[in-house]
C-alpha cells in the first residue's frame, strides 16, 4: 500500500534536487499562513486602491487615465521586479526579502500620503510600492516549495487563497477609511496595515540544512551516491559567460523543456485571463442591471474563488491527479476558456450569476495550480529563478490584456466579441499545454527509464567485477591448491 501510494504520488524526476526532505507540516503551516498574507496583499492591494481614484482625481485636477496609471505602474513594477526578487531570494533567502518588501510598501504609502503632485504618487505608490509587493510575492511562493513536497498542492492552494480573501476585506476597509479620513489619512493608515507583511516575513523561518554526512551503510550506497553525484555536478557545471549570470539567477532555465512549455502556454493564457474579471460589472450594467446587483456578481465570484483555491489544492494532492498535475492545469485553463465562450449565450441576470459561479471556480482552479505546476516542472531549488523569469515575461500579456479587451468593446460596441476573444485565447493556451505536456511526460518517462537502465548496467558491472574478483580468488585458491 505504501509502495503503491508513494510511487503514484511521485512527482516526475528532477523536482527535488533539494538535497533534503521537506518537513511537510509543523512550522510549515505557519509559513503557509505567512505566504497567505504576503500573496493576499500583493494581488489585492493594487486592485483595492481604485476606490480612492475619484477623489484624488478631483484633488489634483487630472483625467481618469492619468490616475489609472498609478495602478498600472504598481502592477507592472510588481511583475517586472520578479527577477530582482529572485536574485535576492537566491542570495539571502525568503525572510529578509519579505521584511524589506513590507517596509518598502509601508514607507511608500506613508510618503504618498504627504504627496503634493501626481508624480509623487506614481513614484511612491507605483514604483516603490510595486517593488515592495514584488519582494513579497516571489519569496512567499518560493518558501512553500522549501517546506512542502507531499502536501505542496494543498499548501499552494491555501496560500493563493489569500488573494480573494484580502480583496474582499480590503475593499470595504478602504471604503471605510476613505469615508472617515479622506485619501491622505487612508494612505497613512494603509502604510501601517501593509507593514503586516513584515509580520508575515518574520514567520518565514529559513530551513536549516545541517550538512552532517551520514555514516554510509553499505558500499552499494556509496557507489550509487557517487554515481548520482556526477550527474548533479555535470548539471551544475555551466560554460562561458552564462556562469556569471547563473550565480544570480538561473538563466539555464530557458533550455528547460518544461519551463518553455509553461511559459508559452501561460503567455497565451494571460492575454485573456484578467479582462473578464475587469469587465464583469460593466457588462452587467450594459445589460441594464443596476449597480448593486452588478457588484453582487463580483462578490459571488470572489466567494467561489476563495473556496475553489484550497479545494483545488486538495484535489490536486490526491494520488490520481498529482502525478499528472500538468493535465489538471491544462484542463483548468481550457475550462476557463469554455466559460468565457459560453458567457454571451447566457441570458439575463440569472445567466450572469451562473457564469459568475462557474468562472469563479475556473479562476480559482487556475490560480491555485499556477505556481504549483511550475514547481512541479523545475523543482523547488530552481523555482525562485523560474518564477522571477516567468513573471517578467508574463508582465506583457497581463498588462496588455485588459486594454486590448477594452478596445474590442469600444470597436464593436458589444461585450460578446471580447468574451469570445478571451475564451479563444485561453482555449488555445489550454490545448497547447495539453498537447505539449503529453509529449513532455512521455519524454520524461523515457529519460527516467534510460537512467534506470544506466544505473542497473553500472551496478551489474560492479557486481560482475566483484564476481570476477571472487572467481579470480577462487581460481587462484584452486590453483594454489
Amino acid at each position, binding site marked *: 500500500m505504501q509502495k503503491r501510494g508513494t510511487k503514484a504520488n511521485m512527482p516526475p524526476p528532477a523536482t527535488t534536487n533539494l538535497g533534503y526532505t521537506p518537513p511537510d507540516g509543523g512550522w510549515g503551516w505557519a509559513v503557509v499562513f505567512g505566504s497567505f498574507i504576503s500573496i493576499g496583499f500583493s494581488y489585492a492591494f493594487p486592485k483595492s486602491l481604485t476606490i480612492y481614484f475619484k477623489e484624488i482625481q478631483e484633488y489634483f485636477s487630472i483625467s481618469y487615465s492619468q490616475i489609472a496609471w498609478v495602478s498600472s505602474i504598481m502592477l507592472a513594477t510588481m511583475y517586472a521586479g520578479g527577477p530582482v526578487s529572485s536574485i535576492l531570494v537566491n542570495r539571502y533567502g525568503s525572510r529578509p526579502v519579505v521584511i524589506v518588501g513590507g517596509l518598502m510598501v509601508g514607507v511608500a504609502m506613508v510618503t504618498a500620503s504627504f504627496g503634493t503632485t501626481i508624480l509623487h504618487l506614481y513614484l511612491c505608490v507605483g514604483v516603490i510600492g510595486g517593488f515592495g509587493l514584488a519582494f513579497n510575492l516571489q519569496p512567499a511562493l518560493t518558501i512553500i516549495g522549501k517546506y512542502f513536497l507531499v502536501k505542496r498542492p494543498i499548501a499552494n492552494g491555501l496560500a493563493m487563497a489569500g488573494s480573494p480573501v484580502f480583496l474582499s476585506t480590503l475593499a470595504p476597509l478602504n471604503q471605510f477609511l476613505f469615508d472617515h479620513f479622506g485619501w491622505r489619512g487612508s494612505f497613512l493608515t494603509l502604510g501601517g496595515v501593509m507593514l503586516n507583511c513584515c509580520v508575515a516575513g518574520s514567520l518565514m523561518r529559513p530551513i*536549516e540544512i545541517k550538512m552532517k554526512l551520514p555514516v554510509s551503510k553499505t558500499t552499494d550506497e556509496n557507489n550509487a551516491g557517487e554515481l548520482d553525484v556526477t550527474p548533479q555536478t555535470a548539471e551544475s557545471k555551466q560554460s562561458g559567460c552564462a556562469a556569471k549570470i547563473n550565480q544570480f539567477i538561473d538563466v539555464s532555465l530557458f533550455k528547460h523543456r518544461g519551463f518553455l512549455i509553461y511559459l508559452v502556454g501561460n503567455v497565451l493564457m494571460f492575454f485573456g485571463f484578467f479582462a473578464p474579471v475587469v469587465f464583469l460589472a460593466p457588462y452587467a450594467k450594459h445589460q441594464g442591471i443596476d449597480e448593486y446587483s452588478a457588484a453582487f456578481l463580483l462578490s459571488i465570484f470572489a466567494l467561489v474563488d476563495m473556496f475553489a483555491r484550497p479545494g483545488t489544492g486538495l484535489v490536486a494532492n490526491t494520488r490520481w491527479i498529482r502525478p499528472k498535475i500538468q493535465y489538471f492545469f491544462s484542463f483548468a485553463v481550457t475550462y476557463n476558456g469554455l466559460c468565457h465562450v459560453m458567457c454571451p449565450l447566457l441570458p439575463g441576470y440569472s445567466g450572469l450569476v451562473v457564469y459568475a459561479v462557474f468562472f469563479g471556480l475556473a479562476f480559482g482552479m487556475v490560480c491555485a495550480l499556477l505556481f504549483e505546476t511550475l514547481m512541479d516542472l523545475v523543482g523547488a531549488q530552481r523555482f525562485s529563478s523560474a518564477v522571477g523569469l516567468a513573471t517578467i515575461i508574463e508582465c506583457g500579456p497581463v498588462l496588455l490584456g485588459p486594454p486590448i479587451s477594452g478596445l474590442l468593446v469600444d470597436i464593436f460596441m458589444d461585450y460578446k466579441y471580447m468574451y469570445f476573444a478571451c475564451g479563444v485565447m485561453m482555449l488555445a493556451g489550454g490545448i497547447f499545454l495539453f498537447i505539449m505536456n503529453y509529449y513532455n511526460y512521455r519524454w520524461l518517462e523515457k529519460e527516467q527509464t534510460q537512467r534506470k537502465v544506466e544505473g542497473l548496467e553500472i551496478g551489474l558491472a560492479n557486481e560482475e567485477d566483484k564476481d570476477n574478483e571472487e572467481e579470480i580468488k577462487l581460481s587462484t585458491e584452486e590453483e594454489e591448491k
Partner: protein
Amino acid sequence: MPSYAGMLALLLATLPYVSSQNEPRINASDQEILQPKSGQELPITLQCNLTNSHSTHRDTFWMKNGQEIANTRTERKHTEFKLSKPRTDDSGEYMCVYTFKSAPNANASIEVKAAPEIIGHKRSENKKEGENATLYCKSVGYPHPMWMWRKKVGRGSYIDIDNSTGRFFIINKDNFTELSIIGLDIGTDPGEYVCNASNIIGSKESMTILRVRSHLAPLWPFLGVLAEIIILVVIIVVYEKRKRPDEVPDDDEPVAPVKTNSTNNHKDKNVRQRNTN
C-alpha cells in the same frame, strides 16, 4: 332726437361685443395633476381648440416652460399634446400657441402639476475641520418648490439650522438649492442635513451626512496598527529564539543526498527510516 350722450353710451356698450368678436377664442383642457408614483401612469392628453378667429390662422405649436417643443407644429385649429407615460419631469406649464397672418399670437396655458422629487444630492460629504462644505439638492416638479434646510437630531425630529455664528449660507433657485458652510467646526457641524422641497401638491426631502475630520484623526489608527505589528513581530521572534535550543535536530533537518537523486527511492527511504512529520 337721441342725445350724443345716449349714442356714446350705446357705442360703449357694444364695444366689448365688437372687440370680443375680433379676439380669437381658445378652448383649452383643464390643468392636470400627475401621480407618477402610484404606478398607474395613465396617459394624459392636453387639448386646444381655436373656436373663433378674426384673422387667417397660420399654424399652431406647443411650448413648455417658455420653450417650443419640437415637432408639434401643425396647421390645424384643434391640436393635442399627448404624454403617454407622464413622469414628474414632464410637469410644467404647457402653452398651445396659435399664430396668425396679420395679428399677434394667441395662446392658452395648461398647467401640469406634480409633487416635487429630489433627483440630485450627495449622500455624504467628508471634509476636514476649517474647510468649507457645500450641500445641494436638485428637484423636478411643478410648481417650483419652496426649499427648507433642517438638521436631524435623534429619530425623526428636526431642528432648524442655527446660524448664530453666521457661517451658513443658503441659495435657493427654482429647482435647486445649496447650503454652504464655511469654517467647519468639528463640535457642532457634523450631522445629518435634510433639504425639504414642498409645493402645493406635495413635498419631499432627502438627507446628506456631513462628516468633519480632525487634523490628527488618521494618526490614531496608524499608531494602533504600528503597535499591533511590533507586538506580533516580538512574539514571533521570541518564540523562535526560545524554541531553537530545544529543537530536535533530526526531524526537520535533512540529511545529505541519500541513495539516488531520482525521486522514486528517495521518499521511500526517508519514510521508512526517519519519522517525518
